[in-house]
């Protein structure tokens, strides 16, 4: 466990009972959780290697409670960690020992659906899938579909700018959210965006989406809903290796096609998925592509034919188009279950999330394999091939001494590689604590300082979710220029928290 969190503020901890009492006055009844067994429920998120009990958890039900909690914390210099469903894979919702955990789960109502204007107004604790469930009777759906969609909250999606397998065509969360209600740390309640397609002034909504809970607490979300396409068809194509599959992906785009989804799996991922869900995947291929097209039936027929031909031209031995909804779902079943499938073949796995220019795919996969050999760890790759978002799953066993550290080191090496070839640290899972200390690989000191200055405009004391996203020295150096190079700080004698 190499990632350190800020040292707890002892003066805050000493006031714990007073703080618990103050919160209980704001949220009466069951809304304040302070006993250790109950706090265990919040100690981790989807980055399960890390756990920390919060000082106290509070579960408000109304916007005025949220505002009062934040104002109290702001006045008293207390840190706050917002939490939705706790599925973050980057440790974004990891509690702080001296922080209030603000659970948004009770904000679970769909407030308004307007089919004529194609929007839904929901509370942040509503799950991603529940939005689709609320509108599907009228033939609508909410497009971003993270694999965690049964569990993750729309508030968490906004904070992480979550994606899904359909985001090449339909966009990430940021492209599907029209407005939010946001409570600032000082208790100010604001509306950013709304029902119109663009704001009157600065696009603050744009920077709040993906801000990982550092800028404010989202208490309401207005999303766009779309009419469900008439048909969807998936193609399953098996290639001898990742390179030929990658060429096919480029050729599909070159042919002017933007598929609804385009996913790639490598051999270890295919084998794990097939053993788990028996999707009917071929086991003798080096790479599998699942390409989905949607729209009127005539369009799907036409595109399936063109894409199948492109696959064959690029060396696909197997090309199968789904002929029924059941078969389409079966093609997806393996891909959608790839993470748990890998979880069956290894005691632990660590999911990475870099994005690369697609033309670098073959090179990057070869380097990952080589890096894995060097540290003695195996890796299975699933890849949002359409947009270059790579999910290497590093297999390790945390009960074996040193393996967690080795897995983290391997993960960091993969992410450095992604940046080196022109890509980024995270395509959809967020920086959280996980990639925090790698931010310097992508951004200069100036860039990071500027981002944090934007943060200060919302949260001057940096009380919201501190220790996340930005390398810790940055947060503590109060915007001064502290250059950290190879672990060496300019003023090593100064204390930093």
């Amino acid at each position, binding site marked *: 466990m190499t990632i350190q969190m800020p040292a707890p503020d002892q003066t805050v901890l000493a006031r714990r009972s007073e703080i618990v009492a103050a919160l209980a006055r704001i949220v009466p009844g069951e809304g304040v959780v302070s006993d250790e067994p109950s706090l265990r429920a919040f100690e981790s998120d989807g980055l399960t290697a890390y756990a920390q009990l919060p000082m106290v958890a509070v579960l408000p039900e109304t916007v005025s409670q949220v505002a009062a909690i934040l104002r109290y914390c702001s006045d008293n210099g207390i840190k706050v960690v917002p939490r939705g469903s706790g599925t973050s894979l980057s440790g974004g919702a990891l509690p702080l020992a001296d922080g209030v955990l603000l659970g948004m789960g009770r904000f679970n109502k769909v407030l308004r659906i307007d089919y004529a204007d194609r929007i839904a107004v929901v509370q942040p604790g509503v799950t991603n899938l529940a939005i689709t469930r609320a509108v599907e009777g009228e033939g609508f759906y909410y497009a971003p579909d993270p694999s965690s969609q049964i569990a993750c909250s729309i508030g968490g999606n906004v904070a992480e700018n979550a994606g899904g397998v359909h985001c*090449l065509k339909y966009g990430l969360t940021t492209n599907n959210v029209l407005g939010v209600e946001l409570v600032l740390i000082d208790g100010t309640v604001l509306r950013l965006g709304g029902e119109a397609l*663009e704001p009157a*002034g600065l*696009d603050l909504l*744009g920077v709040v989406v993906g801000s990982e809970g550092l800028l404010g607490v989202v208490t309401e979300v207005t999303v766009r809903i779309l009419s469900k396409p008439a048909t969807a068809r998936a193609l399953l194509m098996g290639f001898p290796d990742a390179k030929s599959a990658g060429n096919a992906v480029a050729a599909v785009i*070159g042919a002017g096609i933007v598929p609804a989804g385009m996913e790639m799996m490598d051999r270890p991922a295919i084998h794990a998925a097939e053993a788990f869900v028996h999707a009917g995947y071929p086991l003798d291929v080096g790479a599998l592509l699942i390409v989905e097209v949607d*729209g*009127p039936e005539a369009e799907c027929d036409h595109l399936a034919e063109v894409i199948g031909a492109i696959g064959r031209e690029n060396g696909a031995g197997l090309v199968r188009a789904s002929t029924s909804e059941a078969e389409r779902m079966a093609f997806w079943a393996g891909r959608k279950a790839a993470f748990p499938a890998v979880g069956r073949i290894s005691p632990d796995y660590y999911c990475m999330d870099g994005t690369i220019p*697609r*033309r670098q795919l073959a090179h990057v996969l070869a380097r990952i394999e080589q890096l894995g050999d060097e540290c003695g760890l195996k890796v299975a790759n699933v890849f949002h091939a359409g947009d270059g978002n790579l999910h290497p799953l590093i297999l390790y066993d945390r009960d074996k001494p040193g393996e967690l550290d080795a897995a983290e080191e391997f993960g960091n090496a993969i992410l450095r590689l992604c940046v080196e070839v022109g890509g980024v640290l995270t395509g959809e899972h967020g920086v959280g604590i996980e990639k925090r200390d790698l931010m310097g690989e992508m951004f200069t000191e100036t860039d990071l300082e500027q981002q944090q200055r934007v943060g200060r405009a919302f949260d001057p004391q940096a009380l919201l979710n501190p220790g996340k996203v930005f390398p810790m020295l940055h947060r503590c150096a109060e915007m001064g220029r502290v250059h950290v190079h190879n672990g060496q700080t300019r003023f090593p004698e100064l204390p930093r928290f």
Partner: protein
Amino acid sequence: MEALRPTSVEDLCAIVAESREPLEIRGGGTKALVGAPNAARVLDMRGLAGVIDYDPAELVITLRAGTPLRKVTELLAANGQHLPFEPWDHAPLFSKPAGEATIGGVIAAGVAGPRRVTAGGARDHLLGLTAVTGRGEVLVAGARVVKNVTGYDVPKLFAGSWGRLGAMAELTLKVLPAPRETATLAIAGLGPRAAQAAMAAALGSPHGVCSAAHLPQTFDRAGPHTLLRFAGFAPSVTARCAGLEATLAAHGALIRLPEDYADRLWAEITVPVPLDGPVLWRLALPPSEAPALAERFEADGARWFMDWGGGLLWLEWEDEAGMDPAEVRAVAEVARGHAMLLRAPEALRRSVPAQHSRLAALMALEGRVRAAFDPAGVFETGRWLDV
């Protein structure tokens, strides 16, 4: 005063760092007549032009901000691609010839055309940038790949910022394959309410309409026309047209317009030259609010048309006096929308802010965010009458 014209990012940095007076960042100057007149020194970005990296298969293009928009669209078209948000050149709205708009200018002004309703806007296509902030520092934000959530999405702030945060030197934009075919179906004779309902039904149908606009008789003398556009591969466009005809049967008969005629109409919807009076407003609204507003303003002498299925209402007054701007804005606000004064005589622009004001707490936050980039106000020219 002579314009400053940097030709490199270093130049730009030096100019901004040394500037003792406000600077107005300018591309082709096609939107220079938006907002209050001001005396700021012009920072001409056209010396920073040209494509830096474009590999069509990656669906991104990186280029210098002063590159003419026309060059960008031509290059993309030559590779079968396009900017799906349909950015356009404002020059004709100010009686100037088109061709001067730069890509940096259209991104900074958040310019988007009819397809914005389904394809997203400038903000949705700006993936990364290099800019020089008011601090005179080079800032790199976002990235050069389509999918990225590393750090705050600072590019979103720059899109539509009208140059108030910094001068963008380089941009990375998401591009997509251009549709192979387009088709436009029209319903004739509808009033604003029926037209908006038809557009809502079309956009809410599974038939994949990409744009929807309504032109009343005052705009298009051929009579009121509700236009619904499709884009895609030929078999798809044919199927979508047939599907929509069935879905909209209750709204009226759909006729397929000849492509060249339809193209001309969409060009006028994009750059509304026919609304040629002195006062031109642009209202962003919840779509279903548009008809009532159109009727209300028409009664007060406005000409209008709807784009984005009603989400965008263009208004024009032939008469210099137009209508009381405060009244226009009050009506827009009641409808949960906002109104931009895009074109107006100088006297009006001196007293009426081009942008619709926001609530005080939001304005204050915007001010703090701007100050984070430009604490000394190098890029505060007085154009927006809000500080």
